C-alpha cells in the first residue's frame, strides 16, 4: 500500500485547476505525481492512499482536476477499486469528490470530452480497452 500526502509530497499550498492560472495546480499534481503512482498501484493490485490532510487547504478546482483526470484516464471503476482518499481535517471533500467529481468526469470519459491541457506534459498512462498505454494523449 502506497501513500501520497499532498502537503508533503507535492505542496503545502496547492494552487487552482490549471498550470496556466496558478503554480502547483491540480493539472501539475496529476501529471507529475498522481498518474504514475496510480499506474503503479493498479499494476501491482495495491491500493493507493491519497491523504489530503496537512497544508493550507484546497480550492475545489485543484482536487476536481487531479482526481477527475485520474477517472478520465483509468475509469471510475478502477479509481473506486484502487484509490482511497483520506481527509480527516476536512471530511466534506470526500462527499464532494464522490458526489460531483466522480460522476461528472466519468460522464466526460464516456462522451470522450478530452481534459484541457494548458502546458505540454511528459507522456502519461491511460487505460484503453483493457490495456495501459503511455503516450502524450
Amino acid at each position: 500500500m502506497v501513500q501520497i500526502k499532498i502537503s508533503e509530497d507535492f505542496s503545502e499550498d496547492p494552487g487552482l485547476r490549471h498550470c496556466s492560472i496558478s503554480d502547483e495546480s491540480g493539472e501539475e499534481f496529476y501529471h507529475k505525481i498522481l498518474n504514475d503512482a496510480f499506474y503503479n498501484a493498479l499494476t501491482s493490485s495495491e491500493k493507493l492512499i491519497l491523504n489530503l490532510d496537512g497544508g493550507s487547504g484546497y480550492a475545489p478546482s485543484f482536487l476536481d482536476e487531479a482526481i477527475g483526470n485520474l477517472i478520465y484516464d483509468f475509469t471510475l471503476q478502477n479509481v473506486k477499486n484502487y484509490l482511497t482518499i483520506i481527509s480527516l481535517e476536512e471530511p466534506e471533500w470526500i462527499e464532494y469528490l464522490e458526489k460531483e467529481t466522480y460522476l461528472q468526469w466519468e460522464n466526460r470519459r464516456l462522451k470522450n470530452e478530452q481534459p484541457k491541457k494548458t502546458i505540454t506534459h511528459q507522456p502519461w498512462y491511460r487505460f484503453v480497452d483493457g490495456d495501459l498505454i503511455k503516450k502524450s494523449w
Partner: protein
Amino acid sequence: MSIWITNENSGVISAWTGIIGTVVSLFFGLWIAISLQIKLTSKRVIKDHLINEVRTLNDFYFHFLNDLVEDKRNVKGLISLFKTMSIKISKLMDIIHRHYEIDQSFLSTYQIGLRNIILGCPEYESGYETGGVLILTQDTINELMAFRQRNEHLFNDLILKINSSVVDKKIEI
C-alpha cells in the same frame, strides 16, 4: 458493657429508629433531587453552549459574505480560511452528533456550496496569482445571495434540532 432492652427503653429505641429512618429518607430524597437538578442543569448548559456555537458560526458567515460583497476580503488567505472553518465545523458537528445523534454532515451542503462559488468564480481565479482584494462581479454576487437565501435556514434548523433533542448520551469529552 451490655445493653438490655427493657419495656422502659424499647419505646425510646423505636422512637430513635423512626427519627433516624426519617432523616435517612429525607437525606436520600434531597440527594436524588439535587443530583437530578444538577444533571438537568448541566445538560441544558451543554445544549445552550452548542446552540451558541452554531449561532457564532452563522454570524461569522453572515459577516464574511457581507465583506465579500463589499470588496473587503483579500484573495490570499481565503483557502486557508475555508479550511479553518471546515475544521471548526467538523469538530463541532462531531460533538453535536455524539450528544444528540444529529447527522454530522448537516452543514456540508453549506460549506461545499459556498466554497465552490467563491473559490470557483472567474474573479478569484484571475486574482489568484497577483493577490489583492477580491472584487466580485454582479453575477457572482447574485449567485451568493441566492445561495444565502436557499441555505441560511440550515443554521436555524440545526439549532431547533439541538434544542428539541431528547437524546443526550453520556460522553467523554
